């Protein structure tokens, strides 16, 4: 899957969990930049992404998710 498509779908997941779209998708985007993306919603976002792409993150993957770019590439490596 192309990363632009993955990015779009991740964006949809964020909107559905966080209930707003006040963010711009780019590779350097981090949780800190997005309202409401805290440790609680992070867990929900991860679960939603797993279901949406039908993949499963390993615990080790979670530490690699430093920003949107790394999230997209970890997802890409799993589908």
């Amino acid at each position: 899957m192309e990363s632009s498509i993955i990015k779009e779908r991740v964006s949809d997941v964020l909107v559905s969990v966080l209930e707003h779209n006040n963010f711009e998708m780019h590779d350097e985007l981090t949780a800190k930049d997005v309202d409401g993306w805290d440790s609680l919603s992070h867990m929900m976002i991860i679960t939603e992404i797993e279901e949406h792409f039908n993949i499963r993150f390993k615990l080790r993957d979670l530490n690699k998710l430093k920003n949107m770019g790394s999230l997209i590439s970890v997802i890409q490596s799993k589908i």
Partner: protein
Amino acid sequence: MNLLLDIQEAIEKNDTQNAFYFGDTFYTYKEFAQVISNIRKGIQDHISENDSTVGLITNDDIETYASIIALWLEGKAYVPLNPEFPESRNHTVIKQAEINSILDSSTDKVFDQFKTIQSNTLDIAEINLTPRQIGPNELAYIFFTSGTTGTPKGVPITFGNLSGFIDAFWDLGYEITNKDRCLQMFELTFDLSVMSYLAPILKGACIYTIPKDEIKYSYIFELMEDHELTFALMVPSILHYLRPYFDEINCPAMKFSLFCGEALPLDVTQEWSQCIPNATIANVYGPTECTIFCTDYTYKRDSENKTYNGVLTIGKDMKNTTTIIVDEDNNEVGIGEKGELCLSGAQLTPGYWKNEEKNKEVFFDKEHEGKKVRFYRTGDLCTVDDQGDILYLGRVDFQAKIQGFRVELSEIEFHAKTVLDKKNSVAVAFINSIHNTEIGLVIESTAFDTKQLIEDLKNRLPQYMIPTQIRFIDSFPLNTNGKTDRKKLKEMFN
């Protein structure tokens, strides 16, 4: 103070051992001793002899931990100030604790308007870990916890209290040596952090902290596996996060896995015990007022464990604590009967910082075994069985535990009311789908956009106190006593 002499001896004896691991850097005890001595000299040069409390910006680095020891060697108490907390809250704490000086390891100092010693720019000083003459009634730290009227309340802990805790902790037999690698997962404004750095220092063990920008639970897992941690005190919410990944975790090096700060469910504990096959698991309990923790229960791998509603017992009082369970008139209740858990002993705080009103409310004297003893009401509803094990049933008041932090729901309501221009609201703590506690806010009003409300609350309260879900209701339901039916409101979040 023997405790401080013990710290000195341990640091000097283990100078070649690793003391800390931050991010990806190890520091030896020798390096630690050097940083302590530099900061100590800075304190001597810049802070008045009469200043007994000093603010400490809680960064995750060697200077911050060295500042604590340096202050103690000088007989001064530290008051942790989290730079991520709202400025207004930190200002309240600074004012209340009568802080004149702040130790800060940040490159750009956090508070411009206060006298700050930047602990990472000090000159090299001669190593000096010999403590001054310090009495047991002098303060080691003051931690501020959530207060009911919108003002945090200070809990001062003396060196005598802290010595009482350490003595009782070693008595449990959860042994640490200079070969051990210990987790310190707590923000320094949370008193479980004290146990997590102090016990390892006293034995020359290595302390592993969590960088602020990491996701706690997955980072803990990597530390456990990559660095073969042997000792870990955690809050149970970490287990709830890790639970979906238990099948990936195998850490045979772990020797002691302690839990504190929240109810510990038996089923999760059983599953966790498979991830750490060689570890002793313990459930410890205690409020900040009774110095870190004061009761202990060792989980039994091979036989039945005592529970109430699926929650493990908090066990028996430790060596230097006495517990009783009382009714509303402070009379002890019988075995198996419910009542409020009260604590006394060497670990008990001398009382809230400059808050006589609150002290009268929660401390009382009572004849116990022929002596007049001062007890503290914990606000925890408990019962004790015929073997002396205490079972935790819930809170008697409106407090909640969020990620181990004690939260007065009324403090959230107080600020919500101010922000909402007198609209009524009720804060409730509810258990979400992954068994962690979340805060919900019900507002007595027709629905409106709550973005501004959340923004305003964030300027007044720490992140863990911000409601994560909001509901609206035309008018609050009342219970048979004519009070707001909080139970019904809580059901709105299921």
